């Protein structure tokens, strides 16, 4: 398998605080990778660097060999990187399907003049987008919810809608920031199934930030652990789970010592 995303010695500082400290990362095409670590470890900061929200202070981010460091967020989205947010950030006053249609922005071809004239190509373009958006809503388990105002949807549906919106652009790389935050076990399992289907059916590469270990261990093929901005471990789930440094980062030194050598 080819490597889709390569991160080399990435550094992001905030006035002296090093939020991301020389992190290296490689993500294989069509894989599901997880990014874990305690609160404040720099996971979301890393996502923000990957999507152009932050400009890294040093290092390189490459998507399929293309340097993303100084590319603006909308261009990164056009290049095929899409994301969801830790605290759901839907376009609350828009309907569910309109949210997905915004996600599909890069697939549309109709400009302002085309919109005013509404000639057959523009109408066809719009129909295709709406059709795709409906498919995406169905795919995310939101069939029949298209005309609901996003803000009015139940919490779980909002999370799913955010994913449907992110998938709208047919991304090559999908970044999910805590997709199961605030969900109970049943909802989390549904979400895990959706994440799998995204990879299997759409061929999308996925990186997720996750706190629920059950989800992380169940769905991801490769795990990277961050702590204080540094990568402290990586590998397949079963190895990472047993890594003493990971246990220490999560539970503290004393506990870790006791855990490793009972």
């Amino acid at each position, binding site marked *: 398998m080819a490597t889709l995303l390569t991160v080399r010695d990435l550094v992001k500082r905030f006035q002296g605080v090093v939020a991301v400290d020389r992190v290296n990362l490689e993500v294989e095409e069509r894989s599901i990778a997880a990014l874990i670590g305690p609160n404040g470890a720099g996971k979301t900061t890393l996502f923000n660097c990957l999507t152009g929200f932050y400009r890294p202070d040093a290092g390189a981010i490459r998507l399929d060999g293309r340097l993303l460091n100084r590319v603006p967020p909308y261009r990164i989205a056009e290049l095929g990187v899409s994301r969801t947010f830790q605290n759901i950030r839907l376009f609350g006053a828009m309907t569910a399907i309109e949210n997905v249609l915004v996600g599909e922005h890069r697939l549309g071809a*109709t400009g302002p003049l085309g919109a005013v004239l509404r000639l057959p190509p523009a109408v066809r373009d719009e129909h295709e987008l709406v059709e795709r958006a409906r498919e995406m809503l169905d795919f995310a388990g939101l069939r029949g919810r298209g005309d609901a105002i996003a803000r009015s949807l139940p919490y779980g549906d909002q999370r799913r809608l955010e994913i449907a919106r992110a998938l709208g652009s047919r991304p090559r790389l999908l970044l999910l920031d805590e997709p199961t935050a605030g969900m109970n076990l049943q909802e989390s399992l549904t979400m895990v199934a959706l994440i799998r289907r995204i990879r299997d059916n759409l061929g999308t590469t996925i990186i997720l930030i996750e706190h629920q270990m059950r989800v992380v261990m169940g769905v991801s093929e490769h795990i990277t652990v961050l702590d204080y901005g540094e990568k402290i471990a990586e590998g397949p789930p079963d190895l990472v789970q047993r890594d003493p440094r990971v246990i220490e980062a999560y539970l503290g030194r004393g506990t870790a010592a006791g855990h490793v050598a009972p």
Partner: protein
Amino acid sequence: MHLRAIASDRAAAVSAAWQRFGVRVRLAVVVAILAAMAGLPLIFAPETSFLGIPDPTLVLFAAGLYAVLRLGLGWWGRVLLVAVLAYYVNQLNSTQLDTVFLVALSALLGLGLNIVVGYAGLLDLGFVAFFAIGAYTWGTLNSPFFGLHYPYVLVAPLAVALAALAGVLLGIPVLKLRGDYLAIVTLGFGEIIGRLSNNLAPLTGGAVGIYGIGAPAFLDVITNRPLEQIIYLCIVCCVIVAFCSGRLHDSRTGRAWEAIREDEDVAAAMGVNTVYYKLLAFGIGAAVGGLGGTIFAAKVSAISPPNFVLDLSVRAVSIIIIGGMGTIPGVIMGAVVLVGIPEVLRSIQEWRLVIYGALLVAMMVLRPEGLLPERRRALELHAGLTPPPPVTSDPTGDG
């Protein structure tokens, strides 16, 4: 018809009670109201007062307008409405025409600014600048000031282009500003244009201004009353702008604007080129402002710096808010209420502004969503059907 399905949701609110009636009933009611509106000049002599209302036909016409906009009009209904309006304008005396002109011009400006404020959510308080650019363009190119008398059909596109250019130029430095900060900077831009009109005497006539400005000549074929001609011109411009902005709203472009209004960062993350769409909104809005300026100059025939003050920008924003943020019928109704009522109340003299102020306060308390809001916004502000989940908006929350 997916397009229709989406458009219907985005259209102005049609009250739920009316939805239950069949299309035919609604059609009949709309036609009846339109017919009554057309018949108003036959019922009332122009200067009468009725039940203490100073100018009953204007008030009743406005009420009829509100009713049909509220019920919703198909394209045929809109054509009919414009026809009724044209017939009605033809029957009015010159005082009433003055009122109608102010309303129509305000509606045009409101429709233009609505693209910036209502669609893209960019609070622009410097709209008067583009209005001034349009006014001075027509003023200098068709008056004794330079001795130039170019035809309107040539100058109007130039004025529109100049105003659009100014809109984009203003947009560039404020791209990174949001909310209050954006409002303050655009406010400053409006002031700069005001000063320029005062101090750039070789081009603007300074404090004296420009006088003897001509009116578009091509309308003589319709009617020989100049004011009536200008109103028709203004209505035609309103129709064109309303049509274009309606289509823009229900399109990829409109969704991009709406996404920027909702959450600019996320819009960018979804592939929306926020710089382009914001400048586009500024440019189109400014272009309409410039168009309004040419019509204004053509009507008043003399322009000077006091015509181009902050008040006009504020009024345009108020029209959009009173009307119902972002809807075209709302902007039209906002102009009718905000500009028309004070004019009609003029005969009550000293109580005029008191009543006007009380109306505005009552309006914002009882109907914060505006006169003709989008249905979803009305839902949001009333009833509390679905309390929004506690979502923080920390743009970069780390975890």
